[in-house]
Every structure is written in structure tokens, then in C-alpha cells.
């Protein structure tokens, strides 16, 4: 029999998180700092709208780009929060999570051989999606000394004649890094000079703990070069609803919509009705969750300082990215031993790119009570390792 598989797919490495997932799910009593989703339930009024839409029998497809009502709310929201202006009719589309938007945005913009710049550590899907879109991913290894922000210099050095798209994953999973306006202005200059486009994954836009998040599309000259991706998962604790959106100039959205209509048809209808409620009446929920994440963040920054584990202060998402190089182990070894000996799951930094070596991703999408228990065990483990080293 012939090999049924595509070589290109087979060559793609499975996500590094998978291995840990498999070990942890075997361990019944393990606790975790390893999740990438909020611990809050979706606010009840949002769930209630979803239920209500089902009761009313709204169980049909929506139009490919999404419910008009939802697209209008998305457009209003971006104007209200980020002073971004998108025509709901031509420049907004609703997707199955931010993940779908990443995939189809790359496919809509890439010709075979084009290069896509992917700063890492970052979310697991940019590199494989670029490969699936026939692009050549070019990795930038972000540096701890820059607080894992992307600098104009690093970007400039990665650009070739074939570069077409730059992925901008901020606020960042796994590092918690953000890009402030001055950082964005610096890279925008490079992007415009080299005539590039940006895929800006702003799924954590609502979760910043300094000033409000700034979108690169706000920087003059960048709106027309940016595909902005956002969604409901992180801001409204709606991961399981699978709902995101993309905003971009009409020409790009039109082509993304073509892929979406053939591959997906439309995002889940129930989720779309719930999301309308989220955008209309959810600002208070977002503020409440942000405040609690921020309290946990401060708790962790302090805890790592007391433990003596080097770690920059993260201002975005719900992750902290401590350095464990002092122990002379790989991230993978550290995470495996920590899980076996203390029964706490964390994700090794390498799951998000080779340059995550020497770091761990700690999620604070857990109650303070849970964090205290887990961090207590981490402190014990670190103490044990230091004693071994003597």
C-alpha cells in the first residue's frame, strides 16, 4: 500500500505540550500550573444568552463572516477600547477561535516560499501554520534581557527579500511580555520601510497590567498592513465556545473569508449570540477578572523574588516565565522532575520554541489558594535542588 500521509504534515513536530499532557493525565493527584485558559466560568449573563438563543431555536448557520449584530459590536468595541476603526461589513470576520484566524490569515497572504517571521517563545501554532501555508518560518529568538519584547534591531536582522509577514504575538503567551507604544513605533518603522505585513495576535489584549494594551494597528501607517486577531476566550473566559475574530483591510478579509467559507462555513451560532452579550455588557466582568489576575501576578512576582528565581516582571496575559538555568538542567528535565517529585505540572519553556530553554511557563489562571500550594511546592523543590548542588 502507498503511504497515505503527506510528507509535509508528517514532518511537522507535534506540540511539545502534548508529552506533559499525557504524563499529567496519568497522575491523578497532580496539581497544575500548566493551563493556558482562565479559571473563571464564563459570566452567567453571557452563558444565559447562549442558552436563550438555543431556546429560541437559533440553531442555524449564520452568514459566513458572522452575525451582523456581532460584527457591529466587535467594530464598536475596537473603536471604544483602542480607537481602531473597522467597517463591520467588509473589515471584520468571526472565526472559530483566534486559532482559525491565524491559520487563514497566513494562508490568505502567503505564496510558496514567502518568509514569515515568528518571534519566539510564542504560542505553538504560528510556525506550523506558516509551514502549512507553504511559507518558510523564520524564527527570532527573543531575549530575556529585553523582557522578551521584539526590538527593531532583531526584526531588521531577520528580514530578507522574501519576508512578507511578521507575526506579532503580544501580550505574549508564554512569557507575559507586552509591547508598549514606543516598542511598536520602533518596529513599525522597519515594517513600513520593508513593505511587510503584520499578523497581530492580540488575544490577551484585555489582560495587561500597566497601561491599556496598544495595538500595532493604532500606529500611523500600520492599519493597512495589519491583520488584527482577537477573540473571546481569554477576556471573557470563553475558551470552550471557540470564538474569535479577525479585522483587516477589506481585500485581505475577502480572501480569508473564502477559505473560511469552504473550510468552516461559519463560527458556532450559539457562541456568536453569547458573544454579542459579552461585548455589550461584559466590561465589568473583564475588569473584575483583570483585577484578580493582577493580584495573583503580584503574588507570583514576589514569590519568585523570595525564592531567588530570576524573572522579569510580566505585564500581560496570565503567565510568568522564570529562569531555571542555575540548576544545570533543561527545562524539560526540570519540569519532569518537578512533576514526579512534587506532583505539580508546569510547561517547559521549550514547548514555545527552542529559545524557551532554561525557562518555565507558570500560569496564574488559578485561585490564590491554589497558587500558594503549588508555589510552596516549587519553593521546596528549588531548595532541594540547591542543596543537591552544594
Amino acid at each position, binding site marked *: 500500500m502507498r503511504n497515505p500521509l503527506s510528507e509535509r504534515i508528517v514532518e511537522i513536530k507535534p506540540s511539545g505540550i502534548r508529552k506533559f499532557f499525557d504524563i499529567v493525565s496519568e497522575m491523578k493527584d497532580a496539581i497544575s500550573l500548566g493551563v493556558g485558559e482562565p479559571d473563571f466560568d464564563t459570566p452567567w449573563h453571557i452563558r444565559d444568552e447562549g442558552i436563550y438563543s438555543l431556546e429560541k431555536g437559533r440553531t442555524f448557520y449564520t452568514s459566513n463572516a458572522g452575525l451582523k449584530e456581532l460584527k457591529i459590536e466587535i467594530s464598536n468595541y475596537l473603536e471604544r477600547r483602542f480607537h481602531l476603526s473597522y467597517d463591520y461589513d467588509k473589515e471584520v470576520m468571526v472565526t472559530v477561535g483566534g486559532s482559525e484566524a491565524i491559520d487563514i490569515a497566513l494562508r490568505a497572504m502567503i505564496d510558496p516560499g514567502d518568509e514569515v517571521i515568528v518571534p519566539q517563545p510564542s504560542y505553538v501554532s504560528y510556525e506550523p501554520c506558516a509551514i502549512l501555508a507553504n511559507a518558510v518560518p523564520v524564527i527570532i529568538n527573543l531575549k530575556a534581557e529585553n523582557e522578551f519584547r521584539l526590538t527593531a534591531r532583531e526584526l531588521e536582522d531577520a528580514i530578507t527579500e522574501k519576508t512578507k509577514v511578521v507575526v506579532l504575538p503580544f501580550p505574549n503567551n508564554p512569557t507575559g511580555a507586552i509591547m508598549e507604544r514606543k516598542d511598536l513605533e520602533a518596529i513599525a518603522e522597519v515594517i513600513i520601510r520593508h513593505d511587510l505585513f503584520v499578523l497581530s495576535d492580540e488575544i490577551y489584549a484585555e489582560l495587561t497590567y500597566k497601561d491599556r494594551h496598544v495595538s500595532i494597528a493604532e500606529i500611523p501607517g500600520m492599519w493597512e498592513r495589519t491583520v488584527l486577531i482577537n477573540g473571546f476566550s481569554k477576556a471573557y473566559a470563553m475558551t470552550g465556545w471557540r470564538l474569535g475574530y479577525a479585522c483587516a483591510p477589506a481585500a485581505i478579509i475577502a480572501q480569508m473569508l473564502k477559505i473560511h467559507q469552504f473550510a468552516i462555513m461559519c463560527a458556532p451560532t450559539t457562541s456568536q449570540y453569547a458573544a454579542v452579550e459579552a461585548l455589550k455588557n461584559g466590561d465589568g466582568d473583564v475588569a473584575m477578572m483583570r483585577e484578580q489576575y493582577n493580584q495573583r501576578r503580584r503574588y507570583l512576582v514576589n514569590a519568585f523574588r523570595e525564592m531567588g528565581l530570576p524573572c522579569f516582571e510580566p505585564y500581560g496575559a496570565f503567565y510568568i516565565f522564570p529562569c531555571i538555568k542555575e540548576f544545570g538542567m533543561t527545562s524539560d528535565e526540570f519540569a519532569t522532575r518537578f512533576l514526579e517529585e512534587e506532583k505539580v505540572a508546569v510547561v517547559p519553556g521549550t*514547548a514555545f520554541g527552542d529559545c524557551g530553554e532554561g525557562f518555565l511557563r507558570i500560569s496564574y489562571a488559578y485561585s490564590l489558594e491554589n497558587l500558594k500550594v503549588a508555589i510552596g511546592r516549587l519553593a521546596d523543590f528549588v531548595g532541594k535542588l540547591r542543596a543537591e548542588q552544594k
Partner: protein
Amino acid sequence: MREELLRVIEKNSRIDLKELAVILGVEEIDVVNEMAAMEEEGIICGYHTLIDWEKTSIEKVSALIEVRVTPQRGQGFDKIAERIYKYPEVHAVYLISGGYDLLITLEGKSLKEVSSFVSDKLAPLDSVLSTATHFILKKYKDHGTILARKYEDNREKVSP
């Protein structure tokens, strides 16, 4: 800081002061001073414990009582409210808009104790026109806390 501090201790008044300072991103001495100031100003009125008495062997009966009263000249409802709230078995007294005037929550050892409070003490008061007593059969949620349910983490333990 004041508002956020209040939101934290409203949910957890037993939180360690040092930890409170850490999560609010301020110095411990500032937390101590701010709390003392708010106690002084009467903003913080107490540090109570939310108890689900149902789960103990101690018998308790709670009731809500709607009261219609005649307000007194020059003193409105305050005087009559005061006469009522001075009884220790009275948990809360609210002035209410709508079909009646005062809402009282009451806790007693037995049905009999509650009803004798109403018939012997409350109803005979001069300005009380009528009362309607509602016994609480089950508390689902109290002080913003769902009593019936324990939090369960249903998430996958590791996800990207």
C-alpha cells in the same frame, strides 16, 4: 487602593496583611493604616464569618419579615427602625421601597421563638400596621457565596 482593598477583604477578611500588601502592590504599613482609617470612618464595620448553619447540628430558623408602619412626625422611619434593630435577634433592618416599609431578617432557635417575637414584640408596637413573616426554607447563596456547590476545576491540566 481603597476600593480594591475593600473588594479583596470583602471576600476574604482573614487574608494575611503581608500577603494583602503584596497582591495590592503596596507596602504593608499602608494597608495597616488604610484599614485602620476605614475602621475609624465606619467604612469597615466588622469582620464576620459566613457560616452555613445547615451543615452543623445546631438548629436555627431564619425569617424575613415585611413590616408596614406609620412614619412618625419629624422622625420618619428612623425611630421605629431603631426600636426594632435594638433586639439582638434581629439580624438586619432595611427601609424598602414598594408595598411595605421595613424588611427585617431575623434568626431564632425555633419556629416558636420567631413567631413569638413577631406576636409579642413586633406586632404590638404602636406604629406597626401589619407584618408578614416568611420563613427561609433553604439558603442557596448568601453574601455572594454559593453554599450548595464546591468549586471544581474541570480544565485539562495542561494546555497551550
